[in-house]
């Protein structure tokens, strides 16, 4: 049985110094890096010096006065948390004098703290209680009649110091009566999260923790990351789940199922019920930090909406019929085989999910290639990061970010392009913000003034608010400045890059048509700012680029990725810590689903299916002949479905009807299918068009791995049995078997062993190794048995880096008098992707509906006020939603999210796509906004489908029952 994992708290952070210091603590010698606190040095020896305000996730503070020690030859009793070690000193952590002092301090704390320990939610996990025990507190001589924060009424009258519990946050409570004002929550909010929502207000005995301007937590700037709750040594900040259920009794380390940061969590359990998700300190991606989604929004996994039984139906207008697994699997296999007989081998295919494990994805693509005998497999990365794959492969030789997250600690200048990390990748954003507060400089390239442009203690030196659709023009202008102002790192380029390609690129980019001045009219960015930003990036030391879907989701997404790669190579910013070109991946396993051979042209590890050597290997291991021709990508599948050459589709854990652009086109494609199979937790939008529904497993039931944006392979461990009775890969393997290609696995580990066997970059990966090391970053093989945190060190994966020509070609989507504004879409912190998970949690408290952000001027000329309903119309459709006036929007650009299907943001998004990968151009749709007082036709249509297409037949009662 697993035990409850408790990481060691060393009290103060680790020192990075390489100079070592030896000292003596309680007669024992200990050697630690210079700069280590005495408290930490003592803990290295296993000596726990009593403490309350210290914890090793934040800098020492020295306020609780409990960790006092004596040092031979020094006066007084210094605090061990703030006193660094020194060579040869002799420290005593326990003397009669120290014991008296500590008891005295504890007595004061407890004199203003309720004594309801037995009924307190922190009972069993309270540092205050532990310390009272540790220092031997036996009495409180001061009584409770005096001034206090504990009782609502004191001495017969109202106690003005008392504040009632704040229960506004859906996930945790704040009980000021239990606060000891140790400042851990305030410091966690500042140092760990970087939001600065909390402060200590007042002085002396009036000191108290204040959220925002003494508001309730929900109304304050608090982003509900949970760092303060985690840091609180008492029951002042407590998870509501702990209050409801009590303390956990065991825990399992696993990986969050939300964004591409891939945080490690301890799933803290009672029986097979999760009571709390706690960020895991030894998790490589997050090192003990979390955000509101991973920490709190896991309730969807057991939501009532979750489907537990396989279901089938002949027509999508029929009600669903619950069937056995065998019947659902046979139904699927039979339908797919019939379709192939009638319409050819290429008439069926599958879409894999970035929300599923590597093992589950691998098995689906294997089913397509080996059992369907074609290559019609694609993954949802098609609509997010496929240009990253293309662009980085062309220039560097492999499709992945170049760094680990920790690398940002060594960056001197950070350029964020088309990404909004504080919303999309919050835990990495906290790391980045920490580095920015330490002095790294910041350039933000984004049409919107995203939060990171200016937030507490952070300000971008240059914000380049470009016109949506002009990324390539901006990156060309930046590179033009680097080349024409002599900022190219010649030695680096000569040693590391293809000389002919560089020479051609240099000539191309130096052309005056690529100068910031020439492009100013197109990009809308001041030429002088572009010049200054380019100089800063090229000369300020380590330059690191981080980018998101604002780069990829354009008709020139792939060109832009190559443009950034060119810029990084020209300035020598690839191949060491602190630099790099780093995609921030949207979903938890985008990297992994791409690695696992989900693209129609590639096997695992990005090897083209036309490569005979590679295909031979797979044919041998899989014992079947394989098709050497590329298959259909997702948008091509839709077109082929409408054309009639594509009739059967298996969709694993994705909601293409909501997430993909031009919803009407997608829906008519889905309606054309003869057999649509959906494997998911919920009857999602896509399932409205499905003939087979296969209930899936939540991340709490999966046994596998996720690979995050830094190529880190993390274990996903089951903390409970699959609630619907079967692992997802088993369902898929049984479908393949029923179609005539026998497939069977006994565990996730066995699937990973096969992946390792056929994939050189995964050759050294096994569950055993992951359990031993915690995680590894691919490539992991004989050359790098413990993985590769930084790529392209010494030389590029493709040998020499290749500069690609990046001609700016404007998108065909243009504004005109009928559609004068540009719509970009994106997401926000509390919701995730199509919202299937987060909408089924209390996160709706922060974002109950999709809204349209519009610049005050654009709103005013249209007579739109804050909160009014507006109609948002593009060339292909119209929706209605509420307007929010936002001066962070540039004039002429509006923004919304796609988290709620009833809004239908993708009903209006354009059908244009990236030239190389068909990644849709979500970020540029010409629209008009007008006041509206009626729901859109889409809403009516959606509501009708919601009731008609998602009906489940009630089983008739038979006599025997």
């Amino acid at each position, binding site marked *: 049985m697993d035990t409850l994992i408790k990481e060691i708290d060393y009290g103060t952070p680790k020192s990075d110094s390489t100079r070592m210091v030896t000292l003596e603590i309680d007669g024992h010698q200990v050697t630690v890096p210079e700069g280590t606190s005495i408290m930490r040095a003592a803990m290295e020896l296993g000596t726990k010096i009593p403490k309350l305000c210290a914890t090793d996730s934040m800098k020492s503070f020295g306020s609780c006065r409990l960790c006092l020690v004596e040092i031979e030859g020094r006066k007084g009793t210094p605090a061990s948390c703030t006193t660094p070690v020194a060579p040869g000193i002799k420290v005593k952590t326990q003397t009669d004098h120290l014991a008296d002092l500590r008891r005295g301090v504890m007595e004061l704390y407890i004199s203003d703290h309720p004594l309801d320990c037995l009924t307190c939610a922190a009972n069993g996990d309270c540092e205050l209680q532990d310390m009272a025990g540790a220092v031997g507190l036996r009495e409180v001589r001061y009584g409770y009649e005096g001034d206090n924060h504990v009782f609502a009424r004191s001495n017969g009258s109202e106690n003005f110091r008392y504040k009632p519990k704040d229960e506004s946050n859906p996930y945790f409570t704040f009980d000021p009566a239990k606060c000891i004002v140790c400042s851990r929550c305030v410091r966690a909010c500042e140092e760990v999260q970087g939001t600065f929502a909390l402060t200590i207000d007042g002085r002396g005995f009036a000191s108290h923790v204040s959220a925002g301007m003494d508001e309730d937590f929900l109304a304050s700037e608090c982003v509900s990351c949970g760092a303060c709750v985690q840091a609180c040594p008492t029951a002042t900040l407590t998870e509501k789940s702990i209050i409801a259920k009590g303390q956990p009794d065991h825990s399992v380390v696993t990986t969050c199922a939300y964004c591409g940061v891939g945080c490690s969590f301890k799933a803290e359990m009672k029986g097979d019920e999760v009571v709390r998700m706690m960020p895991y300190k030894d998790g490589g991606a997050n090192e003990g930090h979390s955000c509101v989604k991973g920490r709190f929004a896991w309730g969807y996994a057991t939501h009532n909406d979750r489907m537990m039984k396989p279901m089938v139906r002949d027509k999508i207008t029929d009600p669903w019929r619950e069937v056995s697994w065998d019947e659902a699997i046979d139904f699927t296999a039979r339908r797919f085989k019939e379709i192939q007989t009638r319409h050819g081998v290429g008439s069926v295919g599958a879409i894999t999910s970035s929300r599923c494990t590597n093992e589950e994805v691998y098995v689906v693509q294997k089913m397509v290639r080996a059992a369907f005998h074609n290559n019609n497999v694609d993954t949802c990365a098609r609509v997010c990061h496929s240009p990253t794959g293309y662009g980085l492969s062309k220039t560097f030789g492999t499709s992945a970010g170049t760094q680990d997250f920790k690398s940002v600690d060594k960056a001197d200048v950070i350029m964020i392009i088309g990404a909004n990390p504080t919303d999309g990748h919050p835990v990495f954003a906290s790391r980045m913000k920490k580095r920015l507060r330490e002095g790294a400089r910041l350039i933000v390239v984004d049409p919107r003034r995203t939060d990171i442009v200016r937030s507490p203690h952070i300000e971008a030196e240059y914000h380049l608010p470009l016109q949506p659709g002009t990324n390539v023009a901006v990156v060309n202008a930046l590179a033009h400045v680097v080349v024409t102002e002599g900022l190219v790192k010649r030695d680096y380029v000569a040693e590391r890059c293809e000389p002919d390609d560089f020479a051609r690129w240099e000539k191309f980019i130096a052309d005056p048509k690529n100068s910031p001045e020439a492009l100013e009219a197109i990009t809308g960015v001041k030429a002088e700012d572009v010049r200054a930003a380019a100089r800063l990036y090229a000369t300020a030391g380590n330059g690191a680029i981080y980018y998101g879907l604002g780069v990829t989701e354009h008709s020139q997404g792939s060109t832009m990725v190559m443009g950034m790669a060119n810029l990084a190579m020209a300035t020598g910013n690839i191949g060491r810590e602190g630099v790099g070109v780093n995609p921030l991946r949207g979903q938890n396993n985008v990297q992994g689903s791409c690695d696992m051979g989900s693209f129609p042209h590639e096997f695992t590890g990005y090897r083209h299916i036309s490569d005979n050597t590679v295909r031979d290997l797979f044919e041998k291991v899989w014992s079947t002949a394989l098709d050497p*021709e590329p298959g259909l990508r997702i948008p*091509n599948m839709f077109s*082929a479905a409408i054309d009639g050459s594509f009739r059967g589709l298996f969709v694993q854990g994705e909601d293409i009807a909501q997430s993909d652009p031009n919803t009407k086109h997608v829906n008519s494609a889905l309606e054309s299918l003869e057999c649509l199979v959906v494997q998911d937790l919920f009857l999602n939008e896509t399932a409205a068009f499905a003939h087979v529904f296969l209930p899936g497993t939540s991340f709490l039931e999966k046994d596998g791995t996720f690979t995050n944006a830094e190529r880190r392979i993390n274990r996903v461990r089951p903390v409970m049995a699959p609630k619907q009775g079967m692992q997802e890969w088993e369902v898929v393997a049984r479908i393949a078997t029923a179609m005539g290609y026998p497939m069977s696995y006994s565990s996730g580990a066995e699937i990973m062993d096969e992946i390792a066997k056929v994939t050189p970059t995964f050759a050294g990966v096994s569950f055993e190794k992951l359990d031993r090391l915690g995680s590894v970053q691919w490539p992991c093989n004989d050359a790098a048995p413990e993985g590769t945190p930084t790529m392209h060190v010494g030389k590029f994966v493709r040998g020499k880096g290749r500069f690609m020509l990046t001609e700016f070609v404007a998108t065909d989507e243009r504004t005109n008098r009928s559609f004068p504004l540009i719509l970009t879409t994106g997401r926000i912190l509390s919701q995730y992707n199509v919202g299937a998970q987060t909408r089924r949690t209390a996160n709706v408290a922060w974002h109950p509906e999709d809204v349209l952000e519009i610049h005050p001027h654009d709103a005013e000329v249209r007579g739109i006020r804050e909160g009014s309903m507006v109609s948002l119309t593009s060339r292909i459709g119209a929706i209605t939603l509420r307007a929010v006036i936002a001066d962070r929007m540039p004039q002429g650009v509006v923004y919304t999210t796609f988290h709620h299907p009833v809004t239908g943001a993708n009903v209006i998004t354009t*059908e244009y796509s990236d030239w190389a990968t068909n990644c849709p151009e979500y970020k540029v749709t010409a629209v008009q906004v007008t006041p509206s007082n009626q729901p859109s036709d889409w809403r009516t249509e959606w509501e009708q489908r919601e009731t008609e297409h998602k009906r489940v037949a009630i089983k008739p009662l038979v006599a025997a029952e």
Partner: protein
Amino acid sequence: MSDHKEIQRMANQIAKAFGAYPEEQAIKETANHIKSFWDPRMRKQLAEIIARDKTALNPVALAAGRQLGLG
């Protein structure tokens, strides 16, 4: 029969993306791209476009199609 507007747009778009390269190389890159990433039925549609109306494609896309034996 569908007019394959989308295939037409995609082929032209690929050719334009290689617009900065010398024509011969742009044709080669475009042809390679189509061969590497397009399902055979999409290539067949490209052939149909070329058979029907050569002016539907820009010169690089047309030459790439021909290089692939599609016209």
